[in-house]
Structure formats: structure tokens, C-alpha cells
């Protein structure tokens, strides 16, 4: 049964839509999104309760974007992320234990406690890291794509960034350079409608950021960022294009963050309506995939529920692991600054 949400978007299985979707794919994408959702919810609570240090920019609500894109990449494909990087890391294959350990600042963390939330990454999984400078990762991803082309190894790169980031100079320079050299890269703009607390309408005059692609002579695509299958489909096309030597694609995924810019409810000034949040939550990406999976008889409700509970258990175990991991030794403070 097809519903229409408050935002007027079709919700539920659609005629002729993703007809080729398999049970395996639904399970993989669902688990991917649930892993992010639960990781973020736990991480957010741990920081807010004071158990964990740092600032956290949570990805809850946007899971379909990272999951959909990353489902078409391999470990050899490189990726750069943002301040809101946990979801990208998990989708690219990062494990819960070193993720939590990093957030706890432990030696068993991905960055041995040196990086924390805003620099998290697993270089073995093709992640050139989260990045606390808006736009900072975009040129770096272009460099990874350059290496793909230079080596001719058939890999591609992907760079994630927000709507706000498309106003900064690094975005413009990097996309133009990648376009000029036909580099194999996907530029994925996660348009969640806000740069911190500033609504899109106050930071640019465009509705569709994908239009910016025209400035670089590359294709721009708008996709429903709450629909993981749709995201995956545009990513497949963009990767094909990249591998064929035709250069970059700018993908704009319309999405939404459910929590505050930083933390779960740090919002001290109401900069968006509760109704707006609710309307987006109604279109929740995980729920949508569950509807598709069950209505098509690909995956049972029980199986979906099991994914939630298994993931929850994994997370609790990983948190324990992180808590019990050793603290870094201040005697090593100068390690890892230089390669010697």
C-alpha cells in the first residue's frame, strides 16, 4: 500500500520501482542503516551523560545516503567525510569496537585516541577520515581520485559534504579540478536543509544544489536521500560513469538530521519547527526499507527486528570493550606526528 507523507512524497513500494531489489540487498542495506542509527543514538547518549568526551555531530536521519552510496564501493575505493562522519565510517566498513574506543579516546581506537569523533577513519577500509574543517575533505578526495586515474587501478573516490559546505571555496576549486581532469569521483552533497542553524534559504539562493554541477560541466542529480534504493541507483550510475573515464558526478541527496547540529538535543534556540522534524521522521529511511522488504515478501518483520536486536547487542559489547580499553600514555605524546 502506497502512502503519501506530509511532504507529499510517495512512501512505500511503488509501481515499477526497484524491481530488481533482492532479499540480500535489502538485508545488507537495512543492517547498514541500523548499524549507523543505533551507534549514533548510543554515542549521543554517552556524550550527553558525560560518560564520553568530545563533540558529536550525529548522522541519525541521514543513514540512507552513506549506506546507499557505500553499498556500491569497495574497500579499495577511497572516501572523505565531514564533521558528521560516523555514519560514513560505519557504512564504509568501520567496526564498532575501534569506533567507540576512539570516541572514548582509547589506544584501541581507530586513531589511538588522537583523533576522536571529528577525525575518525579506518585507512584500511579506504577512509581518508572525518574532517572538522567544512569543505576540507573535498580536495583530498579529488587527490584520491587522481591516484586512481594515475594508477589506472579502476578504483573511484567519493566525497561527502553538507549543503552548507557547497558555499565554501574548497568545494568549488575541488569540483572544478576534478571535472577538468575527468577524475573518477562522486561528490555527494547531503542536503539536510541546514548549515548548523542557518536554513538553506539563508545561505544560498538555490533550491537544488545539484544545479551547481553546471558550473563545472558535469552532471548533477537530485535524489531522495531518505530512500536508500534510490541513492544506491544514482551511485551505481555515477560509479559507472567514473570508471568509464567520463569524470565526476554531483549527487544531491535531500535528507534531514533528526537531532541537533551537535549532540542529540543541544538546540538552545528553536531554529526549525517540530512539525518539520516530524514530517521528515515520517519518511524515515529505515522504515521505508522495512515497508518495501515486507510488502514484497523479501524479508520478514521478524528478520528486521532481529537485525535491530543483534546490532544493539554488538554495540553494547563494543561499548564495554571501549570502556575497558587502555588510556593512551602521555609519555608517547610526540608519537605519530612524523613518519620517521
Amino acid at each position, binding site marked *: 500500500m502506497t502512502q503519501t507523507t506530509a511532504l507529499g512524497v510517495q512512501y512505500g513500494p511503488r509501481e515499477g520501482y526497484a524491481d530488481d531489489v533482492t532479499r540480500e540487498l535489502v538485508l545488507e542495506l537495512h543492517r547498514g542503516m541500523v548499524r549507523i542509527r543505533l551507534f549514533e543514538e548510543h554515542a549521543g547518549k554517552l556524550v550527553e551523560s558525560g560518560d564520553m568526551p568530545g*563533540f558529536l555531530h550525529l548522522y541519525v536521519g541521514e543513514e540512507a545516503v552513506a549506506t546507499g552510496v557505500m553499498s556500491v564501493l569497495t574497500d579499495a575505493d577511497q572516501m572523505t567525510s565531514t564533521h558528521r562522519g560516523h555514519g560514513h565510517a560505519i557504512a564504509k566498513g568501520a567496526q564498532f569496537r575501534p569506533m567507540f574506543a576512539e570516541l572514548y579516546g582509547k589506544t584501541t581506537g581507530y586513531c589511538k585516541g588522537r583523533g*576522536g569523533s571529528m577525525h575518525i577513519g579506518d585507512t584500511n577500509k579506504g577512509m581518508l577520515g572525518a574532517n*572538522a574543517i567544512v569543505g576540507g575533505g573535498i580536495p583530498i578526495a579529488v587527490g584520491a581520485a587522481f591516484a586512481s586515474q594515475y594508477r589506472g587501478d579502476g578504483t573511484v573516490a567519493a566525497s561527502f559534504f553538507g549543503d552548507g559546505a557547497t558555499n565554501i*571555496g574548497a568545494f568549488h576549486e575541488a569540483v572544478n579540478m576534478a571535472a577538468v581532469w575527468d577524475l573518477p569521483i562522486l561528490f555527494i552533497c547531503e542536503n539536510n536543509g541546514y*548549515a548548523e542553524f*542557518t536554513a538553506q534559504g*539563508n545561505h544560498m539562493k538555490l533550491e537544488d544544489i545539484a544545479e551547481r554541477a553546471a558550473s563545472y560541466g558535469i552532471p548533477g542529480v537530485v535524489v531522495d536521500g531518505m530512500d536508500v534504493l534510490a541513492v544506491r541507483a544514482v551511485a551505481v550510475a555515477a560509479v559507472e560513469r567514473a570508471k568509464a573515464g567520463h569524470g565526476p558526478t554531483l549527487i544531491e541527496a535531500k535528507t534531514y538530521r533528526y537531532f541537533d547540529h551537535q549532540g542529540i538535543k543541544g538546540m538552545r534556540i528553536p531554529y526549525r519547527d517540530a512539525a518539520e522534524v516530524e514530517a521528515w521522521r515520517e519518511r524515515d529511511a529505515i522504515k521505508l526499507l522495512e515497508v518495501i522488504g515486507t510488502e514484497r515478501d523479501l524479508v520478514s518483520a521478524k528478520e528486521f527486528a532481529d537485525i535491530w536486536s543483534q546490532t544493539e547487542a554488538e554495540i553494547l559489547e563494543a561499548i564495554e570493550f571501549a570502556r575497558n580499553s587502555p588510556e593512551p600514555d602521555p609519555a608517547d*605524546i610526540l608519537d605519530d606526528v612524523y613518519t620517521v
Partner: protein
Amino acid sequence: MTTRELTYVKAFNEGLHQVMAADPDVFLIGEDVAGYGGVFHMFDGLLTEFGPKRVKDTPIAEQAIIGLGVGAAARGLRPVCDLMFMDFVGVAMDQIFNQAAKMKYMFGGGVSVPLTITTAGGGGMSAAAQHSQSLEAWLAHIPGLKVAMPASAYDAKGLIVGAIRDDNPTIVVMNKKMLGMKGPVPEELYAIPMGQANVVREGSDVTIVAIARMVVEATKAAATLEAEGISVEIIDPRTVQPLDTDTIVTSVKKTNRAVIVHEAVEFGGIGAEISSQIQEAAFDYLDAPVARVAAPFSPSPYSPILENAYMPDAARIAARVRAVVGRG
């Protein structure tokens, strides 16, 4: 003057309110400075009081933010442009050092650039390598620019007012970890001019020159040391450009020993300049080498344990002072 206790950030905010009320040419732009009041509450209430013409949220575009300030200042307005975190100077550096700071000189003096840049620096919040830096040494090396680093609520108000009223491009670096610290602040509008050091505490055995929050740590260290019979004089330069060398050198000529403390990494930090100036001007007065207490040569770590070891504190300062005094 009526004086009451205010937090560092409230004092700054009050200074901005008052100077904007007094001068319609002052306006404020930056990321989330209007609707949100700035991520550190530095700009709370300004939008409500002065309206959207004078208090504006910008796109994420630091080059444009500073550049807009340069152009508006050259036309005689008094822009306040916020950079949120000091770590973001890198994306706006050209506009700061090649444009704002040099414009007057390059045009043979024909124009003034009364621009104020506000930002927040310093560590201690597990904000990691790209959100914890103290980069004042870069800024102080730029002819044409002035650099203020308030170390108390009183100075936070006085220096933001002084900076805005100064006819040169000036950057005011608030310290993130001091935002909630309280101190006495006069209700009235007052300005602290650029280039006047503050003798925070008088003493006779050693001079500590401390920058920004390190003034607080030095003050704690001084109390400990006093109990041990070591009398510490503390100088807060308040602005590292211009640097009030006279006040520092006069003090060292009295105490014969100097320790410089800052949060930035030691190598190439502002402490190097201060140390050099002291030994150039007071060589014959020195009973011990001028010492520096600062961060080791690495990026700022995320782990609180590592960050504690990274940042200078009262204990490290006291230990260094003991070594310096023991030597004399």
C-alpha cells in the same frame, strides 16, 4: 563606575552591545552569529537588539566574511567579522594577511581598515587537532594587524571595545575554556587600547609573561610558589601585536628572571619573540636563561588524558619557575 561579576563571555557580549548601541557604523557578520547568537553565546541578544541589518548570518565562506569586512571597513564602516574557531584562519588567511593587514600600506596610507575579527581559540575541550589551536604567533607576525587575547572578563569587554574603536584591522581571540569564568566588570562602556600590558600581580623573584588562559594557570602557580617563598610577578601582554615590550622588560630588569607561558606549541610560538626581546633588552640583568612553557610539537590530541599532558598548567609552570629560580 558600578562593577559586578560577569562571565568572560557575558562581558565580551556586553561590550559588543554597548559599542554597537553607541556607533551605528558597527555591524556584525558571521556563521550563526544572528539567530543563534554564536556557538559560544558570544553574540547572544544582538540580533534582537540591533536587527537583521546590523547582525547577519552568513554562508560558510570565511574568505567572503573577512573580505566583506575589509571592503566595508575601507568604506568607513566598522565591521565585526566572526571566524568562530581560530583554527579556521587557514581558510581566510589571504584576506587577513594579504588584504586586511596590507591594504593601508599598499595604497600609501590612503585608506584605513577599521575591521575587527573575533574568534575563539585554545584547547582543553577534547575538540582535537582542528578545533583547539592557538595561532597567535602567525597573526603577530603580520605587519598591519593587531592581535588581542583577553585573559579576564574585564579585558574581554575592554579589548573588544578597544579593537572595534581601533582604526586598524584587529583580531580578538577569545579563549574557549574561559567563557564561563567570572570576574569584576564595570557596567559602563570602556575601552582597553591595543598594546598595554597588564601587570596582573607584582613580585620580585621572577617574571611570568602569560598569554590568554595561561594567566589563570600562572596565577595559581604563583600562589603555590608564594607559599614556598618565591615571589612571582605576572605580566599579561593583553595584545601580542603590538607587544608592550617596555612593561615586560621593566619587570624582568627588576626580577632578573623570566618564564613565558602560552598554549600554542613552543617552537615558533609568540614566546620565542618575547624571549628574544627580553634577552636583547635585558641581557645583563638576566640571572638565568629566559624559559618557555608551552605545548610540545604535535597537533592537539583528542584524548583528555593526552590533552592534559599537552597543555601547560599551574604545576608545569611552577616546576619551571622553581628550576629557573633555583638556578639564579
